[in-house]
């Protein structure tokens, strides 16, 4: 098994990589720091697992060299779990890539990174509900300070491929229930 770190440019994938592997990868606060992939090893429940820091990509229809590398890495590593790192303050944009990866049948864990910035911006995300709709683990993280990492690592083994039809169904089911009973919504999750 391998783990691929994927996500938009500058959502903190390299910070994840450094935290998880203890390796030395550049972290810079501008998009496109990692233009080539980086490999490292992390401990997962007593096993050494290979972790690959994939260059930032907005979608799997490549538009630049870095995205080409990303698509190639994904295709070459069919047996991987993908940790899809999203910017919590721009969930919609990040979900596009996450859905594309889910549609291709990869097991996915979604990390809602930059959770602190989302909080600053007063954006509330219902993590539990998002998890229920997507059918994959969703974990809020703040990579720079290390919050949420324990939970993220523990969820990697739980990740399993889900059918996109199931996601569509649960999205509309939850939506129907919400409009009927007006119960869902309200509660918002905090970083554990």
């Amino acid at each position: 098994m391998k783990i691929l770190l994927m996500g938009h440019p500058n959502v903190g994938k390299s910070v994840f990589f450094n935290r998880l592997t203890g390796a030395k990868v550049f972290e810079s606060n501008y998009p496109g720091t990692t233009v080539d992939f980086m490999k490292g090893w992390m401990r997962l429940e007593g096993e050494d697992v290979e972790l690959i820091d994939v260059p930032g990509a907005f979608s799997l229809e490549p538009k630049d060299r870095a995205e080409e590398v990303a698509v190639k890495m994904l295709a070459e590593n069919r047996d991987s779990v993908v940790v899809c790192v999203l910017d919590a303050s721009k969930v919609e944009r990040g979900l596009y890539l996450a859905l594309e990866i889910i549609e291709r049948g990869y097991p996915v864990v979604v990390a809602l990174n930059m959770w602190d910035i989302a909080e600053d911006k007063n954006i509330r995300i219902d993590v539990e509900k998002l998890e229920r709709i997507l059918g994959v683990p969703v974990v809020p993280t703040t990579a720079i300070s290390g919050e949420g990492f324990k939970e993220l690592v523990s969820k990697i083994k739980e990740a399993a491929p889900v059918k996109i039809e199931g996601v569509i169904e649960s999205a509309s089911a939850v939506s129907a229930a919400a409009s009927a009973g007006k119960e869902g919504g309200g509660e918002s999750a905090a970083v554990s």
Partner: protein
Amino acid sequence: MRLRAQVKKEVVKVPLSVDERWDLIENISKQTVEFGAYKHTLKDAIAELTVKPLTGIPVAIAVIYGFWSFFCDFAGTLFTDGFMVKIFDEHWLPWLQSVFPGGLRNSFYALMVDAGHLEEGILVASDNCFEAFGVLTSGLFIVFGVVLWAILAFYLIFAILEDIGYLPRLAVLVDTVLHKIGLHGYAIVPTFLSLGCNVPGVTATRPLETRKQRFMMMTLLAIFVPCGAQIGIMQDLVPELMGWIFLTLAIGYLGFGFILNKIVPGKSPELIMDVPPYQMPTLRNIGRKLWIRTSGFLLVAVPFVLLGCLIVGLMYLTGAMDWLAAVFGPLLMVWFGVPSETVAPLIAGFLRKDLAVGVLGGLMAQGIMTTFQVFTSVILLCIYFPCLATFALMIKEENWKELLGSLASLVAMVFVYGGLIHLVGIILGVA
């Protein structure tokens, strides 16, 4: 190119169309994401001040001025002039001259310690490490006396700017100017990186969308952007000329970029870049970056500078340098207005630019060049060829057509721009 072909061959079946996927996302986010009232924070206020032209341009000037002052004061004045020149010229050089076997006229001694120089026909010992030109004297002085401190100072400030998130703001500010030459504001990132070392600069061109933009960017970087090692040693050698040097290179960068944009086929589309929020840099990350970059520099610079020193020394000893000077001398003198001896730094520059400027320093110490000739030589050293490491990377990143294009631009540029500088010098009466 090869990569793109592979990706296309493999057609991946995905169940959703682009529109269906966005519909689903809208449905999901409607239910799970709630946008509260947006609070304007201090961070936002600072972010706006640094992007709006009216306040952003003065801030940018202040940042770059501060960067440069720190670079000069920390690396040049404090370390190089304050400690290293004294250590190398007053202790290391005299000590080696007294204990190293051989003495002047001995070839091995000349290569390793001091080649000496002629004063009124008599060979005399050198009294500083620029002049001596031995592997153990000038070679070590260039790396550890001058360039190491310049690299440290540059990367310290650069890492802080990177981690705060200032670079994308600078990109937004210069976007309009760079669009005039077919580049995007993002070009500021490879350009800035290249001011440290051209190698990561060339790698950082990958997020640019079209081959045209990448080709232009790589060519401009290789020709007009001096690296940190080179800047460090130039600053030590000719501090009073630095303003003119940067101005000349900047004019070349923009002017030649404008021409390239007109003649290179292809498109220069908008590249949409995120401007990330400002962040507090962490000491851990700054320290780590500084360590990786500085040790990376030493790993390449030490062997290459020492080897280069040896090669140049051997070429002097065997008479190869005099032969080259005789062959290329007329061209150098007539077209560029520099003495035939300039051939030595130009040879060294194939290997490393800091070494090349060091060799030039040796020539200056002999008093055979006018200030304007020094200025022209320094510019020629910048633009005539990227260093070996950068060139090797360009071979990897460009296809053969682009590589030929880069080389052709390079040759054209050296002759046109070098000649132009000479012409301006003649008109102004300084050449």
